[in-house]
Every structure is written in structure tokens, then in C-alpha cells.
């Protein structure tokens, strides 16, 4: 199973109060595994791209480090040390990644770990393609602010991409494929010329139908993204803060 498919399941969404921070410490192995998958789904791409650009590592090296980082997260129970009152989870993970990369020359340790822990199936090819299509200059990640900004942006991209995938599955399960296609055409494409009128004409439906379909899709997208976000936050306060950051609601 790749992490792209490590979603909450077809048409099923996690309970509102499920949190990976708690679940990763659960005595239940299956629960712990699910928590790690949830965490990986949201963070592996940001971590991978971060290691590639911020630490200027080659693709194979960054892949190894990303795998190693999530394995270490579980092995050393790093999430137990996370305190939502002190920082955001994503900042904590980024700092953990920094620390991990700095110690990456301890190859023996990585080899030992590799034998014991599950290898995560991550789609690094897709991540490389995404990096190729982006125009990020590694030199622009010199300051702490720019690093934080980059990591946040990639984290939002990852979160939203997972939510879009969940939405697609939801539409499929509810026989609303056309709704998803409309959403895809209007909200996910870079085409500036797209309009409700044009979509109505292309799909052979009334403009009000386009309006209603998009309103439904956006509402569901928002709900799904927030549920996913709630999963990876340690507290309600952190969830509120991260929701504002993810959706750009933070005061300028």
C-alpha cells in the first residue's frame, strides 16, 4: 500500500476526536500503525522535499532519510515528547527532521533499524516530479522564516491533496463523479479562463447546477480537510491555530 492510498478508507472518515498524538502511544499495535500511516500521509512529502532542498541531498539519499526519519519517529517514540502547548506538530517534526539529518552519518544505526521496522511504501517518483515542477531555489531557504514558510506550504499542499483524494472517493461512492469533475475543472486547474458558464456549457447543465455542485464539493472538501487536520493535531488549540494557517485565515 502506498501512502497515497493510506486514507481513512472508502467513504469512511476518522472519528472527529481521533488524534495521532494519542494513537501513536496506544498499546494496540494496529492503532499505532494506523497513526503512523496517518502521520506519514500528511508529512512525508513535506519532509522529503524539505530534506531535498533545505539539506541539499540527492534523491536516493533523501528517500533513505525520509524512510529513516519516520522509522525513528516510531522507534524512539519522539511523539511522546511533543507538547502541543509549546509548539505546533509540524514545527516539532521539522526540527526532529533537522536533528535526524544532522545525525544521518550514523549509518550503522540506520542499518540496524532497517531490519526491524516496516518499510513505508512512499511514492518518491511523484514527489520528485512535484519538485521538478516547482521553482524553489534552495538558496531561498536560508532564513528560519523561509524554511518555516516552505515547510508550511508543502504541508498544506500535502494535506489538501489528501483531502481532494478523499473527496474524489466520496464523490465516487455517492455517484457524484460529475460534481468532482466540475470541482476539478474549476478549483484544481490553473486555467484562468474557466467560468461557471463555460463549465455549464461543457457539461450540458444549467449554471445553477454548476453553482450547487461546486458549493457542495467545497463544503465537503473543507470538512474533509479539517477532519484530516484534526487527526494530526495534538489539541483543540493547536487544531484551531493550524486550521487558520492551512486555510490562510491567519491575520496578516
Amino acid at each position: 500500500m502506498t501512502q497515497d492510498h493510506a486514507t481513512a478508507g472508502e467513504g469512511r472518515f476518522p472519528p472527529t476526536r481521533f488524534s495521532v498524538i494519542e494513537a501513536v502511544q496506544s498499546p494496540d499495535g494496529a492503532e499505532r500503525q494506523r497513526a503512523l500511516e496517518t502521520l506519514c500521509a500528511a508529512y512525508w512529502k513535506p519532509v522529503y522535499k524539505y530534506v531535498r532542498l533545505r539539506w541539499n541531498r540527492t534523491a536516493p539519499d533523501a528517500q533513505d532519510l525520509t524512510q529513516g526519519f519516520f522509522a525513528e519517529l516510531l522507534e524512539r517514540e519522539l511523539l511522546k515528547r511533543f507538547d502541543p502547548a509549546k509548539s505546533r506538530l509540524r514545527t516539532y517534526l521539522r526540527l526532529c527532521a533537522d536533528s535526524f539529518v544532522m545525525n544521518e552519518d550514523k549509518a550503522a544505526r540506520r542499518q540496524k533499524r532497517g531490519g526491524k521496522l516496516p518499510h513505508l511504501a512512499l511514492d518518491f517518483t511523484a514527489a520528485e516530479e512535484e519538485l521538478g515542477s516547482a521553482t524553489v531555489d534552495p538558496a531561498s531557504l536560508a532564513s528560519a522564516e523561509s524554511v518555516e514558510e516552505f515547510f508550511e506550504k508543502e504541508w498544506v499542499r500535502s494535506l489538501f491533496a489528501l483531502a481532494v483524494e478523499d473527496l474524489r472517493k466520496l464523490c465516487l461512492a455517492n455517484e457524484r463523479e460529475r460534481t468532482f469533475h466540475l470541482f476539478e475543472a474549476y478549483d484544481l486547474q490553473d486555467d484562468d479562463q474557466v467560468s461557471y458558464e463555460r463549465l455549464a456549457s461543457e457539461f450540458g447543465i444549467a449554471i445553477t447546477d454548476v453553482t450547487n455542485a461546486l458549493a457542495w464539493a467545497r463544503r465537503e472538501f473543507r470538512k474533509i480537510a479539517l477532519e484530516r487536520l484534526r487527526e494530526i493535531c495534538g489539541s483543540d488549540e493547536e487544531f484551531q491555530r493550524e486550521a487558520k494557517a492551512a486555510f490562510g485565515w491567519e491575520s496578516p
Partner: protein
Amino acid sequence: MRFLSDKALTRLRDGAELPDLAGTRYRLLGQVARGGMGVVYAAQDETLQRRVALKVLEVPGEESDLANRLIREARVLALLEHPGIVPVHDVGTLADGRVFYTMKFVEGRRLDQYIASVASVPDRLRVFLRICDAVAFAHDRAVLHRDLKPANVMVGPFGEVLVMDWGLAKILAREDNSAVADDGEAEATFLQTETAPAPGDSPTRISAITGHGTIMGTPGYMSPEQARGEVQALDARSDIFSLGAMLRFLVTKDSGVSPAAVTRPDRSLEAICSKATSSDPAQRYQTVQQLALDLSRYLDGLAVAAHRESLLEKSLRFYRRYRFFILLILAYLVMRMLLLIFLKR
């Protein structure tokens, strides 16, 4: 999994931000303002055919601290039926799970923007007295505003003055007031999120947990006891401090129309500001009515309680108050003297 471009991220954010008004009587018109608690939109009430302001949280959930606070704000507004306080119409939860309430759509300008066009200090003071009326009414209903500042006052096109943003209001314990409980304010752990400073506004709100409670308010306008997070110790005098800070802003802020018109306030006015903003609550005006009375006396050219005048100041004030009669008598005396001199020749 699909790669989302920066443009797609922006579109998704924009699309997800708008409140879902499906199933309500409201139609969205546009965003008006964004604050620490949520976003205010202009909306059309399709049933009553009127424009309303719709305040909605950004994040869904009826159980969160912010949701509780927004609902409480609506209930506080419902409790305060006064011409100087914006009336609430409706409260509820939208289809997208976000808590909202609607209130009167106030057309006008914020006080800090309004005074840019009002050069006369007495005119500004008359506006201030109307703010005092609204705050005094709230205090009478055992409600503290806790975030009084020019940006939270609107002045309408017909001169109506409305005190807005009761999101930080505190209901004081009172035996005969059970309409709105204060939900254990002293134990609050809610962190007020930062609010963007508007042009000409004071710096953003700050927040921190203290041993007593949560610090909420605006630096420069919140009382020292509020800044220390002494939630239990807050009473009407805390709002009086904020009113004093607003008064100082009103009498010292230059007007865009005539920058030279507003200068350093005279001693009586300065004394009123200083008394209202004393760091010791016991040294402040004890009620808003006392502050308003002193200010009214100042406007009428009478002695104010906040300032003990010297003989010269008393004479000058007497002269200013009765200038017309004094000049009339002087003119009469001069004429009389000239007449006598003329007759002696």
C-alpha cells in the same frame, strides 16, 4: 495523488473560506472584516429583505472555546438592548458546522476613522459621551466590555454611535442576572488569537496564560489589572480605564481636516484623562456616570472633579464661560468713562 499547484491551493482556500448559507434565510453579499474570533460578512436576509452583518467562526464545531465564546457574545448582545449597542438578530450553526450570529448591519465609519473628519474637540467629546451612555448601560446590566477602543466603535451617517465587538465581554456575578452565565471565566484557558491592526489602530491583542486567567484585550487600552490577567479582580473600573485611554486618543489625535485644530488638551481635560486611566482602580472614576458627568461639566465650562484649579485658572474659565457678558459690561464701562471724560470737557 494529484499535485496541487500554488494557484490551486489559493482557489481551494478561497472556496473553502466562504460560509455555507444553504438552508438559512441569508444570502452572502461580501466580506466586511476579519477579527480574532471570526469573519464578518454582509448578508441579505431574504425573509425580511434587509441587510445584516453575519459573524461566523472560521473553524466548525459547536463545542470549541471559540464557538462557546461567539454564542456567549450573541447572548450578551441580546441582553443589552440599547441604542448605543449593536442589536443581535439570530444565532445558530451553519450547514458547514460553523457557529454564526447575525446583527444589525452598521453603515458608517470606525471612530478612529470618523474623527479624522471632526476637528472640534467638543464635537468629539459629545460622541464620547454617547459611548459612555452605552457602556454605563452595559455596566448596569453587569456586563464589562473589556476591549473598548476606537476601532470597536462605529459612528453612523446620522451621528448614531454604536459600541461593537463584545467578544471579550465578561458577565459579572449578580444575583438577579441569570440570563447569561459566564462559564467560569476565571478558569478560562482560551487563547485570544491575534487581531490584525487596522491603520491608525493600536497594536494587536496579546494573549498569555497567567496564574489567574487569560490576558485578553488591546495594549494601550486595557487596564493594568486586565494586562496582568487578574480576571477575578476586573470590574467597571477596568472599562473606565479603557474609556480614559479612548478619551485621550480623541482629544489628542490630529484631524485630517485641520491638523492644527486639536492640540494638547487643557489641564482639566488632561486631568479627566489621567484620573480615568490611573493605574490604581481606586483612584479612577468609580462609575462611567461619574466620568461622563465630569466631562459634561467640562463641556459646560464648569469646574471638574478631577482637577483642583488655581485662582488664575478659575478666572480664565470664568472669563471663557461668561465672555460675552464680561465683554458687554466692559464695553459699557468704557463707553461710560468716555462719556464722562467728554462731558467734563
